[in-house]
């Protein structure tokens, strides 16, 4: 097993990976930018290496600096977390070349699955259902028209190098096609340096359901059940849960098998996630493979009782996956809420700043993967995720109640978070009924405003705070000065 691992990431995910390393007896190296000198991940490692200015391209995305840090500290492997270099085939390749173990799939697999159209073709060949549409990217109107003809309307334009919703457009009518394609292509070219796009059938009222897979280097591949991630704002997940309310045991088995087939077809090794779109008729279509640890992996850990990061490290060290598909059993229900520094009252706009006070929730079945602390200045340069609050309970209903209790006891002061918004999602009838679709927020919570009653209570607290003396409360026992000399014959416990 590795003696030392460098974690090429920051925030909650770096902290979470370090915890498993520490439990495995592996020394950890943190890397940090100038903005993260006091970040929790920097403080949580055995060694911490500065890698440059706050700007991501000059630090967390700077391969040279990271490889240098690996060599300087003598780390044998790099865990990339999610984001930054996690799905960068060049970085994985560079590690391979330099004799550093990259904890993730081989560079070739990352590269092939990273190109959306290539991934579509691989899956199509492997018999995994894909969304009806083009199998070749194109940049000329004739090809777009032919593709649209074949796909039908409404359709979705996607950038082949895409990600994060950029270059994506829904087209309802043939008349709008050319203009929309041109605009999307321009946007894609600006964002990714490549303007090629392709067309897929648009599936309204769908769900986002993904399957966690794990594959070792000897071709043993299993899946660890599904996660439903339909509740999104601006194409980003904010609530995830498992099991999905939309899956029957038969559908679960079929999707699991499809995901394993997808992994096998792609030559996958290590942990990964096969994302699917599930339509209201229970048909599912391949969306993409995330070739890394997924943000929402904790809910899978909660229901399976497994540590995914440990499995990743063991597989990267060449160990066989000592787990059969039959041994994987989900138990209970898990929900994750992402706690972002953002303002639900202002269209989820980022809210960086200093955490003036933090009080984390606790209790049975509650896990908070947190990357910040009281007094930490949340930098403007990075992803706004502060923590992931995860609960596990016997049933979905109980998990919702547990999450509600946990959110209500979670105080994050100094930056705005959507905790109150999340409470209202959980309390809503459609969420409680399991009617979770990708348009959930637009449909049910577009007009959301903060609770008025709580606002008045907060105003009373404001007044009370002004009136209450700041000194230490009276009525407690004064601590006495020092341990003195004493004699004892005997103790007993009543």
């Amino acid at each position, binding site marked *: 097993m590795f003696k030392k691992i460098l974690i090429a990431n920051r925030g909650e995910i770096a902290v979470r990976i370090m915890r498993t390393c520490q439990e495995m007896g592996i020394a950890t190296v943190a890397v940090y930018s100038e903005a993260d000198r006091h970040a929790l991940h920097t403080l949580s490692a055995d060694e911490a290496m500065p890698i440059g200015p706050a*700007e991501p391209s000059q630090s967390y995305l700077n391969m040279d600096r990271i490889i240098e840090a690996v060599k300087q500290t003598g780390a044998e492997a790099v865990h990339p977390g999610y984001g930054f270099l996690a799905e960068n085939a060049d970085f994985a390749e560079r590690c391979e070349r330099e004799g550093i173990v990259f904890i993730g799939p081989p560079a070739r697999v990352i590269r092939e699955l990273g190109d959306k159209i290539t991934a579509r073709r691989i899956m199509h060949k492997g018999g995994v259902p894909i969304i009806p549409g083009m199998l070749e990217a194109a940049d000329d109107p004739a090809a777009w028209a032919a593709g649209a003809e074949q796909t039908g309307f409404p359709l979705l334009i996607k950038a082949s190098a895409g990600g994060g919703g950029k270059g994506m457009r829904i087209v309802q009518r043939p008349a709008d096609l050319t203009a929309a394609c041109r605009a999307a292509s321009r946007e894609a070219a600006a964002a990714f340096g490549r303007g090629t796009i392709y067309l897929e059938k648009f599936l309204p009222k769908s769900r986002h359901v993904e399957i966690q897979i794990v594959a070792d280097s000897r071709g043993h591949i299993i899946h660890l059940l599904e996660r439903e991630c339909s509740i999104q704002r601006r194409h980003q997940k904010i609530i995830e849960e498992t099991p999905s309310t939309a899956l029957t045991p038969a559908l679960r088995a079929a999707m699991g098998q499809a995901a394993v087939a997808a992994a096998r077809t792609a030559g996958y090794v290590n942990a990964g996630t096969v994302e699917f779109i599930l339509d209201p008729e229970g048909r599912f279509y391949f969306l993409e493979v995330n070739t890394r640890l997924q943000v929402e992996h904790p809910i899978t850990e909660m229901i399976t009782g497994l540590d995914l990061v440990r499995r990743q490290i063991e597989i990267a060290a060449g160990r066989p996956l000592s787990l059969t598909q039959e041994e994987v059993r989900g138990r209970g229900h898990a929900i994750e809420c992402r706690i972002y*520094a*953002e303002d639900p*009252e*202002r269209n989820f*706009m*980022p*809210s*960086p*700043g*200093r955490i*003036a*006070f933090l*009080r984390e929730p606790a209790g049975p079945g509650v896990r908070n993967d947190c990357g910040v602390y009281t007094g930490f200045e949340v930098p*403007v*340069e*990075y*992803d*706004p995720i502060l923590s992931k609050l995860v609960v596990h309970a016997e049933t979905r209903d109980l998990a919702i109640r547990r999450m509600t209790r946990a*959110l*209500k*006891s*979670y*105080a*994050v*002061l*100094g930056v*705005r*978070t959507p*905790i*109150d918004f999340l*409470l209202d999602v959980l309390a809503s009838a459609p969420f409680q009924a399991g009617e979770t679709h990708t348009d959930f927020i637009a449909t049910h919570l577009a007009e959301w405003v*903060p*609770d008025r009653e*709580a*606002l*008045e*209570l*907060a*105003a*009373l*607290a*404001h*007044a*009370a*705070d002004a*009136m*209450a*003396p*700041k000194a230490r*409360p009276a009525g407690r026992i004064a601590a006495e000065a020092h341990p003195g000399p004493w004699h004892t014959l005997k103790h007993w416990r009543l």
Partner: protein
Amino acid sequence: MDVRLRHNEKIIAFSVEPAGDGRFSATFGDRRVDVAFERISEHQLRLSVDGCQTLAFVAETPEGKAVMVDGRTFLLADERAAGTRSRPGAANGPKAVTPPMPAVVTQILVATGQAVEKGQGLLVVSAMKMDTILTAPFAGVVTRINVAEGQKVAPGQVLVDLDPPAADPPAADRAAEPAADAASIDQGGR
């Protein structure tokens, strides 16, 4: 004692009558509630409102006092301390080119001396991987660009000075305003 607190654009006005011994009653319009309170720690208070106990968490922030009750956090600024002046930009509408949140300038789209249309993009700022285009609040001429690409900027900071056509009155006190805002809100928030 009248209390006026501002939460975003909303004013919460009520009166407070201290009753001694960690108690007061508060009146919102024609509703009256009895409150007992006690400080547990710097950031934590125990409230009992009409007999029901709640914990409140509080912290001062540059924008006002952040107060959390029952999982819901509000940023409340004391209007008395801040003067009776409401937040600029709220009632008056946007006038200065300033970022909505702490951010980094990633792109400058105009040059000094350039004439711009109302709504035209002037620069792009980025915060936490989200880009925001700041646009011209009125037609005019860029008289000065106060920032460089890569620079960190904060709300209230005027990034671009814009001169309106001579006839347009709102230009008068452009440069002076942000500093005044900062000072007045500082008093309120701290």
